[in-house]
């Protein structure tokens, strides 16, 4: 696992400390100052079209101040991190703003790592003639609150997108040792003579190669987010403390796994990263909360994440890690009379109100009498959240595998990098859509 990344905060730490002390004086029309979030981002893109490579670079910075009163929550955001700019931003709501009169140190520019472009060039050539994009994404941030501030560091990530007839994407932490193998899988050709399961068919489905991470991301991760719990919209809302799945199931949301794309050391509200046990021995135990949700639900915060400096923090997942069991996955597969083995998931959604999930299967196999018979054509699987959880087989694979295929999790239109690691899991019945 790479060493934890701790880039410098976007502004001089001494000045941030003074700023946090000065924030105690901020008042604004009955509203309480919550926090000031400052962020710098770098996105480098290598875009390959028709054999030509084009390089693009985008550097952005901005800040957002949050205020809260009983009747409204306000976020003011603006481009730029100059002292004057931050003063103007705070002054939009505060009665009086006098920022610390000290000279700030100039922070060093964020740059892509050495060798990045050569690597991107090699990746695009491996992906063949289809248009492709390789992105390097890096950010550094800080959260300033009254009397305290926290630097926010998350690992730089790479996203590889292949266009053309069979679009697919990969998201991984830069430097992840398995990146090469994942790229090879991304470049693999589509199987011929694939089997298309009939819509409406109900089959047992074995999720292998880490794909159970995508399933649990939807079933447990999103539905344990505090905003859905507060409004009662989550189908798991009444099930806290209850057994929802097989007793062998352990699910943790773990931002300290910085080898996965959703890692960080502080969340975007300045709360230190710590794993949260969501499911322990099949019982729903934990929730993913931002500060507001934690206050309302009487639990701990730590999952307030922002899609960018201009969006407010909301309760979101980081890295969903499902503990491995002891059963070799081949053994579970060998027991399938007729079912599906999923090896790659291309997307998944959950509708909290109807409590149904839809998974887009990109690759897999039809299994008959324990043997892989035909490759699976892309298809969708669906089922009710609570039923799927209840139908997870007690045999849990001994093969914990990180998933590279998903990662960009989109909630209310806001994308964020997330990660997952899962062993093989068998769902006794899912419906083909």
């Amino acid at each position, binding site marked *: 696992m790479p060493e934890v990344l701790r880039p410098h905060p976007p502004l001089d730490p001494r000045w941030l400390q003074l700023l946090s002390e000065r924030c105690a004086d901020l008042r604004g029309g009955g509203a309480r100052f919550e926090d000031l979030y400052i962020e710098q981002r770098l*996105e*480098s893109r290598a*875009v390959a079209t*028709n054999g*030509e*490579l*084009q*390089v*693009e*670079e*985008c*550097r*952005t*910075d*901005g800040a957002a101040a949050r205020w*809260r*009163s*009983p*009747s*409204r*929550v*306000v*976020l*003011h*955001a*603006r*481009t*730029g991190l*100059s002292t004057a700019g931050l003063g103007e931003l705070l002054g*939009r709501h505060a009665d009086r703003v006098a920022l610390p009169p000290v000279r700030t140190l100039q922070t060093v520019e964020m740059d892509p790592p050495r060798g990045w472009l050569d690597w991107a060039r090699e990746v695009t050539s491996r992906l063949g003639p289809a248009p492709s994009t390789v992105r390097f994404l890096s950010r550094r941030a800080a959260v300033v609150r009254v009397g305290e501030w926290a630097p926010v560091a998350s690992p730089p990530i790479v996203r590889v997108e292949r266009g053309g*007839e069979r679009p697919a994407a990969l998201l991984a932490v830069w430097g992840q040792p398995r990146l090469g193998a994942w790229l090879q899988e991304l470049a693999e050709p589509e199987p011929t003579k694939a089997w298309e399961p009939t*819509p*409406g068919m109900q089959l047992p489905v074995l999720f292998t190669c880490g794909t159970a991470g995508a399933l649990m991301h939807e079933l447990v991760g999103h539905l344990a987010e505090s905003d859905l719990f507060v409004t009662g919209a989550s*189908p798991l809302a009444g099930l806290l403390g209850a057994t929802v799945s097989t007793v062998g199931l352990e699910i943790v949301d773990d931002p300290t796994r910085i080898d996965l794309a959703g890692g960080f050391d502080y969340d975007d509200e300045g709360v230190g990263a710590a794993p949260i046990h969501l499911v322990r021995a099949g019982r729903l135990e934990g929730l993913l909360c931002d500060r507001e949700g934690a206050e309302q639900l009487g639990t701990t915060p730590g999952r307030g994440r922002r899609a960018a400096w*201009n*969006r*407010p923090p909301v309760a979101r997942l980081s890295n969903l890690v499902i503990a491995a069991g002891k059963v070799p996955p081949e053994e579970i597969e060998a027991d399938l009379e007729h079912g599906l083995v999923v090896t790659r998931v291309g997307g998944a959604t959950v*509708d909290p*109100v*109807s*409590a149904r999930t*839809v998974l*887009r299967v990109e690759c897999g196999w039809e299994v008959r009498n324990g043997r892989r018979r035909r490759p699976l054509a892309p298809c*969708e699987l*669906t089922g009710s959240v609570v039923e799927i959880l209840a139908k997870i087989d007690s045999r849990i694979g001994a093969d914990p595998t990180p998933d590279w295929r998903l990662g960009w999790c989109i909630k209310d239109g806001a994308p964020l990098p997330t990660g997952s690691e899962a062993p093989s899991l068998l769902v006794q019945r899912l419906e083909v*859509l």
Partner: protein
Amino acid sequence: MSTPEVPEYAERLHRAATATREHLERSPVDRWEIFAKASYTREVEVTPARPLRVIDVEETGVAVRTLREGRMGFAAASGLEGDASRRAVESALATEVSFAGDPLPPQRLLGTTEVRSARILPPRGWATHVGEELARAVASLSDNHLRLRRTILQEGAFGWILATGDGWVARHEDTSTTLLAEVELVGERAGIWRDWLHIPEPESFDPEAAAARISDRALLTRSRVATDSGLRDLILHPEVSAQLLAAMAPLFLATPDTEDLLPPLLDNEGRLAAPSLTLVDDRSNSDAPITGPCDGEGLPARRTLLLDEGVPRHRLASFRDAERCGEVPRGGALRLSYRDYPATGIANLQVLTHGGVPAAELLGTADRALYLLRPLAPVSCRPETDSYRIVASGVWLDGRRVCGWHPVVELRGSLGRLLRRIEAVGTDLRWFQTERGCIGAPSLLIRRQSVVG
């Protein structure tokens, strides 16, 4: 753009463009282009029994494209003052890579189309008022069977400058107002019905009409569940039509001949779709979501005819893609943000509805029709295999009478056959934001399609 609450950007944009030009003139570049943009967005979320959520965002930035000795660079940096210009220019020079040809359009192609002056944003408090009025109207219209879950109103103002090293400059300012509403059936877990409304004229916004529009589909699903299969007439709700068009959109973007997937889809008369379907990408329509005097590279804004009564005519292309694919450059580049390279894209893809039929009439003309209300998964089109797949929920209609709700229905078959069986288009055109761009789509009546229950 100068309303009391919106900052005045014109002068700051001008200064940023000037500072960037000065940096470029001191740099060893042959040709260059500057794009500076400023935007102000106010988003108000109204959720019953919860505090109002307000997000005010001011975002600015500069982008630069450079060309020297066959090497091209592109970079963007946030901000209009201070270091932004220097960072953009230095990064663009640092990203230069060898490039065949000249990606910047020649000055003879550049120009602007007259657009109407920027509209005024609604006054502060308007969004809250609309959210409350909508909640009341939805409940009243549905006899309290429906509940407005939340409303998000987004009001924005923006301005930009596009300038080239040849001395050509274009400027644009405008505002936009949109609404996202979510309704749900009271006491039932039947899903959220989400509607996105583009509001070109906020002063004439009618909450009652909007409430009817965001409620109609959810109310139809209150009937008993009924499934069926076989060859049936189909009516696509505008949202389903828009998703179908979004899935087909790559067919209307310039492609080299060797990768062109369109010819195998055409019938003997060279037709892709029935004569009732005419598609344009209209960048000169001031009531459409994307407005501006020129495309993302400075070619005059125009209406590009993509499908003329079912027959393909032109395709969208940036200047570089047009050169590469042997197309005439018609201004098909899109630049939604200063952060993005100007690339071929859809701005306002829309179905022309002048020969259309009112939606209510369309619903009544079909026999035992399936009315598809919303897609449950992305609509997929695979031109290389002449196939499509729609998974949606809908209702069965007998004349205008709803006789059952079909929660999940799948349609698949030949894309060409589907498009050539479009018998009529509705007049109920609505705009949708899709992953391919903004699409204006009406209801579509399609005869005799295979339905799998």
